[in-house]
């Protein structure tokens, strides 16, 4: 699975759940995701607008939040194989942005994939 595929799956899970759409209705954010690895650094993004999530590839000019982690780890997180809290507390997943947004993303993974 590629990172883009994992992100697409995550977005689809969020968008098909009416309660998550309602929860995200007032949460408009642009999230830059930087995947590191032997290939260098790769940029993808996630946007939330009026309860609907979208994803894509490439950098964002002025994101609300930036997440940096090894690509394999990001794939595991967005496909539900790994809770983001574990690598975050280990310093392997770095975030820049507001803590409330970070918590919102963590909650989304919790709600979609469980603990």
């Amino acid at each position, binding site marked *: 699975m590629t990172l883009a595929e994992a992100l697409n799956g995550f977005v689809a899970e969020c968008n098909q759940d009416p309660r998550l759409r309602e929860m995200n209705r007032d949460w408009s954010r642009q999230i830059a995701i930087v995947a590191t690895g032997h290939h260098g650094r790769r940029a993808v993004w996630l946007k939330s607008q009026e309860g609907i999530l979208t994803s894509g590839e490439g950098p964002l000019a002025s*994101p609300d939040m930036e997440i940096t982690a090894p690509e394999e780890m990001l794939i595991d997180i967005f496909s539900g194989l790994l809770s983001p809290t574990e690598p975050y*507390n280990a310093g392997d997943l770095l975030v820049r942005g507001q803590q409330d947004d970070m918590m919102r993303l963590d909650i989304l993974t919790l709600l979609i994939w*469980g603990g």
Partner: protein
Amino acid sequence: MAGKGLSRVLPYRTAVSTSAGLASAAINFLACVEVAEYAGGQSAWLALLVAGGLIVFAGANFSELTTLYPSAAAIRVWIRRGVGDGVSLFSSLIYATTVVFVIAADAFVVGHMFRATIPEVPGLVWVVALLAVVAWANSRGIKVAGAVQDTNAFVLLVTLIAFSLLVLVKAPPTVPALFRLGPGWIQAVAVGVFIFVGFEWVTPLAEEFSDARAIPRGMFTALGLIAMAFGLFSAALSTVFPNPHALSSSLIPQLMVGMRALGPLGFWWMALVTLTTAMTTFNGGLATASRFVYALARERVLPEWFARLNAKLVPINAVWFLSGISLVLAVGVYITGGYLTLINAGAGVESLMYALSSILVINLRKREPDRERGFRVWGVPWVPAVLALIFTALGIGALLTPVGRSPVPWSLGFVGGLAVLAGWYVAKVVPRLKKRAPVSRSRQPGSQI
């Protein structure tokens, strides 16, 4: 890859006000009296200055660590990478409980302040009411706005400086008295560390600034302001009351200074400042600690119960649990009057944590030498090594300091008991929690998650 700047970041002044605001708890006023008592009177300001000088070195450690790993998980990350997971978890649990100490002790001070201003209502009622209001506000996701926090911290510091200068101008101290060191001067420095405790709690905000180096700059500015404000307050206290022991029975020394400086206006002004300061400490402390507990539960080192969220996406069980613990401690302190036990325990734990920060700097320089650092500690490994020894000695000194007439070091017993409990938890309970089966992937969101 991503854009250089984030769209929403915190300003530099928030780094200063958060650092100064979290350190400036209402209990600090009582700690100033204790410092003056140990220092033997008017040299209390000097003890605070020495404590502040040492804290600057600890601040340097936190500056390097926060620019190395800017994370809301802060010490959890640094200790894990610098020493190991078990020590990280053990230390983080102990460290987080100091937040509860401060909340409980502040509740005690504010309860007595209300009793002094509105004697008809028992202080304990105020303690319960204040903690309930803060817990409720936290449960609704209400936070003290950044602007309010900024204003409150600066008003407190400016007020303290102005009041203290007024007192000192009215009754100027003699120069020899300002430098006369009492027999408990080292203990005065150890307890003086408590005045600055919490300055580093701004580091979990590192991710919210455009440049993580705003945190070191903010911490150092805050330390200077705290040293100036509380140093002057200590000098004023010990000038107006040359025998600080006379004040040791007072739980509202700041109100007495206010009254002495500006009469009833000063009294009520200081009462308001104490209240807003305590509310900021309660609110900020509870919000930070509850998120930390939530993160540990998500990591499966605390029971899943603590990760439960309410409809406002607030870790509600963590909020009520921490509020409950704070209330029990505050009531216990209120009944026994043993607030000095909490002050000494807080000073001891923080000093030991500052010693550990030195070890982390040294270890991470060896383990991750090439990782970018926005701030570098001076003289590694020798300066941090000496600092580790000094803070270890100060920490043990604070824990061994007897309270009142009793020769028993209750603070040591309190922290020791906590350490045994945390050690047992990390060794026996955490492995079982880690092994538990993952929750079903089909869990659906609800009003309670």
